């Protein structure tokens, strides 16, 4: 495991049934304003299949007002609408995750410094154990995106930890498909 700043998740083991892969920003506005969105979405879609097969849940959070999700619907269990940058803003995401029993979140999508960062901080305040997927989070700006990842790792993991989809799949006992 190479997650930082600690081996994620904090409890040491991951029960896949308590895991949700949360995809944010997979819409036109972000796709037009991020670097290499296809790579991030591809990594997420590959991870989504594994998360599902392992018993986890794949959630897409879509900003209300534009019905333009660009995430493969074949690998999505649940779509939730939100009202802001954070997937938790004006949305039923928290309620859905609690109902599903998912308290571990792997977060990726488009807009590392915007949608992903806001959702990580929102998840953290609500007590979720969250992992930001660095290879599956397209930044608006590479240098600023690196700083967003750095901020997450400060103070012992201020919003959780950072890692890659490979780290997540390794945790689920799978190699990258």
């Amino acid at each position, binding site marked *: 495991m190479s997650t930082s700043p*600690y081996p994620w*998740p*904090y*409890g040491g083991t991951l029960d896949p049934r308590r895991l949700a892969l949360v995809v944010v920003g997979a819409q036109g506005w972000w796709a037009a*304003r991020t670097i290499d969105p296809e790579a991030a979405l591809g990594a997420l879609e590959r991870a989504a299949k594994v998360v599902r097969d392992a018993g986890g849940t794949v959630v897409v959070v879509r900003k209300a007002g534009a019905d333009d999700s660009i995430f493969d619907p074949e690998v999505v269990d649940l779509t939730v609408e939100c*009202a*802001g*940058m*954070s997937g938790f*803003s*004006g949305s039923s995401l928290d309620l859905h995750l609690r109902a599903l029993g998912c308290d571990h979140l792997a977060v990726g999508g488009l807009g590392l*410094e*915007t949608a992903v*960062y*806001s959702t990580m*901080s*929102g998840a*953290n*305040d*609500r*007590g979720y*154990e969250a992992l930001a997927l660095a290879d599956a989070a397209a930044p*608006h*700006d590479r*240098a*600023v995106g690196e*700083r*967003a990842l*750095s*901020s997450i790792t*400060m*103070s*012992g*993991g*201020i*919003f*959780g930890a950072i890692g890659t989809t490979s780290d997540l799949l390794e945790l689920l006992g799978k190699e990258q498909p």
Partner: protein
Amino acid sequence: MKQVAADPYTWPYDGPVDPARTALVCIDWQVDFCGPGGYVDAMGYDLKLTRAGLEPTAVVLAAARAAGMMVVHTREGHLPDLSDCPPNKLWRSKRIGAGIGDTGPCGRILVKGEPGWEIVPEVAPIAGEAIVDKPGKGAFYATNLDLLLRVAGIAHLIFTGITTDVCVHTTMREANDKGYECLLLEDCTGATDYGNYLAALQMVKMQGGVFGAVAPSSALLDAMEAA
């Protein structure tokens, strides 16, 4: 009053600063985040970085008070039995050697009522000012901040506080998502890492001001002094 010369746009978007509709929000100026012996000090970070904004914030506070602007102070802290502290947050703090609830030079770390939890004297609240206690990073989650602002007719928020990339950003992002028009005063904030502070300012300004605008406190004071 007039609009503030801010980046990436003149703030607020809808006209001159209106003290009746604007609140100054001072985030977590607590000993635990900028005082010797507090939580940030215990983690080994440079206190100069988180204390850098204290002086200009004191000047802005005085101007806001003189203008009759609503002032809100926030404090992060947990109940003495830590029943409102998520277990992963507790675990992470202990792992880095600054355990929430552990006893340090300023009392129990990040616990309500302890000396470390108090706001430092330079920017301490005065009678009549709102104080919002929060269990997390964002000041809107599990608090009455949104209600306080709506009852007071506030639509515009001016932010000072620490740390820029964590509690200030989380709160400013929540505010922006709720439709508040936000301004961050760049010299009235700081982070545990200077590069992350600069990037956090940049993040506000991306995409035409995705979370609002950024200005030096002098620009706000200029706008407030204008006839």
